[in-house]
């Protein structure tokens, strides 16, 4: 369709980027070009990632950290090189980075460190040095926010159920920001000397809101709490440095950042990882095994039981390399700075275009200040599922529903929203197609 926009600055060379993603050249329903606006759920994969995974299987495949043959050596080197590349992206040391199957598992790993430490302490079983802070007693408190994805909410609810700890939460204001001053659900209202964990998202998968992590982390540390960050929607989209954020552990998924599915990452301060009892147990996470009992390997191996997802880790390493090699079209920015600028420009353009459509309301910040590229919206008189269906009919693929953030939707009094998310391969033309399709939905359902 004809572009209706003024030139958008700060973009990547989108045509060049798109050529790296084979799936983007296919057509979808009714022969329409694919307008993929669901990268917040999962991203598409460039040749660099597909080739890296295939090359691993074709040339180097073996079970890593086992065996002494050449392939085992090469596979282990490739797996550890991927760890190193990913650690480098977030300013971390290699040994602080644990591979998990996804971010959900990474967050569960942390919540289970608490319940496992608590269960072991109850009958005097051996625990790693420094594990006291993972032992909970009834009345201890865990703080989350009202904008969490279920993956950073349900594990903490479960932990409360298992230990008698109490869940508290920071509220969300009408603009979709954390309501830090709220009398009941503000930061100082929910933090206290019983707070043991503060778990929050870096960037809301629904609202796009980037939270003031440093501010929350400093307040949490002042009461001695551990700070857990869900970085699923930030590490793929923004420059992230774990030390600048000031958090203790952080989780993200590979598949949302051009990598394969089946691999995620937990980063943790090394002294904390050392103090955490294992989550999944079995092969390769042990030190010595006897019939009477076992001791465990130091991190990260302590948390990588079983033969790991080596090819997927290698693919994720390639995705990191791909992201770091990107340059903005005008050559001024590189790597994650260029990615962030590209998404910022598209988000501004989309927010402006949607604001011009009567009957469309964006749920979340309407400006681009501290905001990522998730743009969720409701259309008067048309349920999100029906909006999504009409968009899909025109090749525009968005997410509809509550996006695994049901309490947040309840907070805004909506059952479901339609959500567009942008990534490196999206263009202003994609936004134009989105807006045209939304207008078409309105005319199809006769709401305008």
């Amino acid at each position, binding site marked *: 369709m004809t572009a209706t926009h003024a030139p958008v600055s700060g973009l990547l060379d989108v045509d060049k980027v798109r050529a790296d993603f084979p799936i983007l050249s296919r057509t979808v*329903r*009714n022969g329409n070009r694919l307008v993929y606006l669901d990268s917040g759920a999962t991203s598409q994969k460039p040749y660099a990632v597909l080739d890296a995974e295939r090359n691993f299987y074709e040339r180097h495949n073996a079970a890593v950290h086992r065996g002494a043959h050449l392939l085992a050596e090469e596979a282990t080197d490739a797996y550890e090189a991927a760890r190193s590349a990913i650690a480098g992206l977030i300013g971390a040391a290699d040994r602080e980075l644990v591979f998990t199957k996804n971010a959900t598992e990474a967050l569960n790993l942390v919540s289970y460190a608490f319940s496992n430490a608590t269960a072991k302490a109850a009958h005097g079983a051996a625990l790693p040095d420094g594990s006291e802070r993972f032992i909970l007693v009834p009345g201890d408190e865990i703080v989350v926010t009202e904008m969490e994805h279920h993956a950073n909410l349900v594990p903490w609810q479960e932990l409360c159920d298992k230990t008698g700890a109490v869940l508290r939460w920071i509220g969300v204001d009408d603009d979709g920001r954390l309501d830090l001053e709220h009398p009941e659900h503000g930061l100082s209202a929910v933090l206290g000397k019983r707070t043991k964990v503060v778990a929050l998202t870096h960037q809301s998968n629904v609202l796009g809101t980037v939270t003031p992590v440093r501010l929350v982390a400093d307040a949490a540390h002042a009461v001695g709490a551990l700070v857990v960050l869900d970085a699923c929607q930030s590490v793929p989209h923004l420059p992230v440095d774990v030390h600048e954020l000031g958090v203790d552990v952080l989780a993200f998924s590979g598949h949302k950042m051009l990598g394969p599915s089946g691999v995620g990452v937990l980063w943790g301060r090394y002294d904390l990882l050392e103090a955490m009892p294992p989550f999944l147990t079995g092969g390769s996470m042990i030190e010595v095994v006897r019939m009477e009992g076992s001791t465990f390997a130091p991190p990260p191996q302590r948390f990588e039981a079983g033969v790991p997802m080596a090819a997927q880790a290698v693919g994720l390493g390639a995705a990191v390399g791909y992201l770091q090699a990107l340059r903005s079209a005008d050559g001024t920015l590189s790597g994650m700075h260029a990615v962030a600028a590209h998404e910022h420009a598209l988000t501004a353009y989309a927010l402006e275009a949607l604001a011009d459509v009567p009957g469309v309301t964006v749920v979340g910040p309407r400006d681009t200040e501290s905001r990522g590229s998730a743009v969720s919206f409701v259309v008067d008189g048309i*349920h*999100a*599922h*029906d909006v999504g*269906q*009409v968009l899909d*009919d025109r090749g525009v693929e968005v997410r*509809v*529903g*509550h996006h695994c953030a*049901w309490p947040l*939707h309840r907070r805004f009094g909506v*059952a*479901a929203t339609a959500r567009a998310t942008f990534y490196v391969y999206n263009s202003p033309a994609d936004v134009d197609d989105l807006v045209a399709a939304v207008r078409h939905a309105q005319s*199809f*359902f006769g709401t305008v």
Partner: protein
Amino acid sequence: MNLESLYQEIILDHYKHPRGKGLREPYEVEVHHVNPTCGDEITLRVELEGDKVVDVSYDGQGCSISQASASMLFEKFLELMQGRGQVEPDEDVLGDAIAFAGVAKYPARVKCALLAWMAWKDAVAQAVAGTPEGTS
């Protein structure tokens, strides 16, 4: 497959003008069903006289398909959904619900169409068993 085959006039009509919407007294059994992927929900009541269902009432919120479907409470509809478009629909038996034949071609929407009907099936099963649980 085009959009009009999914959103037939009769479906949009039921959506915009739902028949019999609203919960009624008395009732023997009330169930509450949700579609956890999208948050659509329905509360459905059935009233029995002996072993005969004499009233069905419902309230809910959701997409056009789930709400129109609730408006067309009709048993044969289930058979059509589970046929994934393979069942030869008999218009005389199905009535308005024949319009849902198009839904079967969109697997992601079948759950929307079935929401009210699964609730109805559950409510009737509970009523027949005489063990109302309130929710399910």
